[in-house]
């Protein structure tokens, strides 16, 4: 425990003192604040003169501004934080000759990898909590609304799944830093996997679903084929942690998701007006809906870390 704490403290200090983390954090914080500000301004404009719906505070997180919502932004760029924190966790120590020094101290070898992973998770948590708090502060100022208990509960759960999501990518990056001795190789492998899982899985799902159950928009297709196509696409897409996270966070932050709301396309003002007549999912029901996503996300994060752990522990130490 003493060894893990020492490694943890050292790693935490390294993360917060490293230029690359400060730059990335500043970039993500800046984009988050701009996104939240634009969403807040758009909400304020659309809410003028009408009764405010129940979950207006959460809209700050899921309203698409000029480009994307805050939730979409974290889903897309959050992994980069995990990758940046972990891609050279072990191979940097090896290259600098400090790994042998660490393991020749009277600590268990797993203290090194546990300390590094926990420090990364703590850094991610601090970063996400601070961003959500600042954006909430924006919300209070721009919308003049105080979040209710349920909204706070939803935001806390959102933070939990976001931490697991980014920790999955941290685990992947640490695994590559153990497998590859070269730092650029592990960085490249991490980014390649991020691109593959984030972009190509959904593309592959579409191609595969189209091949197995073709749906032709010009010709009449059987209803069963359309459903089969959608199911195949859905199942394959869920192999991507980004899809798992996006679905779960969208349902959490938007209580109107998965409710029988109007199927017609509406503008923001109409959507807000209509939401007053719709029945949102209570938090407990939203949690039930995202439960499989949440379990899958936690499972892949733990599996990824376990693989890193086993590989690290079984590697020969050589000078």
């Amino acid at each position, binding site marked *: 425990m*003493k060894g893990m704490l020492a490694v943890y*403290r050292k790693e935490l200090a390294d993360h917060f003192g490293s230029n690359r983390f400060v730059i990335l954090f500043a970039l993500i914080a800046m984009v988050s604040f701009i996104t939240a500000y634009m969403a807040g301004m758009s909400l304020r404009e659309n809410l003028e003169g009408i009764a405010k719906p129940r979950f207006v505070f959460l809209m700050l997180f899921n309203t698409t501004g000029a480009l994307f919502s805050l939730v979409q932004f974290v889903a897309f760029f959050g992994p980069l934080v995990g990758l940046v924190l972990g891609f050279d966790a072990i191979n940097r*120590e090896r290259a600098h000759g400090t790994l042998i020094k660490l393991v020749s101290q009277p600590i268990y070898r797993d203290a090194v990898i546990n300390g590094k992973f926990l420090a990364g998770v703590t850094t991610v948590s601090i970063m996400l909590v601070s961003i959500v708090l600042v954006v909430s502060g924006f919300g209070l100022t721009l919308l003049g609304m105080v979040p209710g208990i349920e909204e706070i509960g939803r935001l806390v759960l959102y933070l939990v799944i976001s931490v697991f999501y980014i920790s999955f990518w941290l685990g992947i990056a640490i695994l590559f830093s153990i497998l590859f001795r070269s730092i650029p190789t592990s960085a490249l492998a991490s980014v390649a996997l991020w691109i593959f899982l984030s972009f190509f899985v959904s593309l592959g799902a579409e191609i595969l679903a189209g091949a197995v159950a073709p749906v032709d928009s010009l010709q009449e297709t059987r209803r069963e084929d359309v459903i089969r196509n959608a199911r195949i696409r859905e199942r394959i897409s869920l192999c991507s942690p980004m899809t798992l996270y996006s679905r779960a966070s969208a349902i959490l932050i938007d209580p109107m998701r998965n409710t029988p709301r109007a199927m017609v396309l509406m503008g923001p003002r109409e959507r807000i007006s209509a939401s007053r007549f719709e029945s949102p999912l209570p938090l407990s029901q939203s949690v039930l809906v995202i439960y499989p996503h949440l379990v899958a996300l936690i499972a892949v994060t733990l599996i990824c870390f376990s693989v890193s752990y086993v590989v690290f522990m079984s590697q020969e*130490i050589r*000078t």
Partner: protein
Amino acid sequence: MEGTALIETWGLSKDYGRLRAVDDLNLRLEPGEVFGFLGPNGAGKSTTLLMLLGLTRPSEGKARVCGLDPVREARKIKELVGYLPENVGFYGDLTAEESLQFVADLNGIARSEARDRVQEVLETVGLTRDEDARGKPVGTFSRGMKQRLGIAEVLIKEPRLLFLDEPTLGLDPEGARRIIELIQTLNREHGITVLLSSHHLHQVQKISDRVGIMIQGKLVAVGSIDELAEERFGVDQETVNLEEIYMKFFHEVQP
């Protein structure tokens, strides 16, 4: 423990795939001695040190270090043994004090106690006298200062036994002399047993009580320099030096 061997190995061997890096090593180190561990690159010296520390599992044979089994009691051994690896690395952004504090934390030394010990070991290795070392990041240190800091890091746990793997590698003559003097001081004044692996044979000759020569994974000779000189040349070490003895053994194994 007094009077018993600090290190004992019986048929210790290590295979990396098809390569036998250490072959049937039988070694005994008595408390208080400086043992020079000699051999060409790739002879298996560093692998032996790793096995004795419990960092690498032996393929065959067994060992006892300070009366403990390196396979099952590695952590306890690492509390008693300080190891300075060849090409030791440092966290370049930390100062000497911070580096030592980190190592003290890893060794579970209380912060209040560690503060005094940090100053003590810096004094021992001569880094408090060095103006360049004060409050500056280790990344700006010269090679000699880094080596002395490396020794300070292994001394902070107050070890009974020191494994020094090429401690004078890449140092200028003055830097190497200071390290050798430091090793002598640690052995004579602090009573620390030293296992010194080095290619600088004249330095080893100067401070070692006994030497062991390892070639191609085998310990081909072990004894005091006098004994080895007598055995191979029939003369004492005043007439032949360690380099000649070493070369004699080396050419016998690798003609």
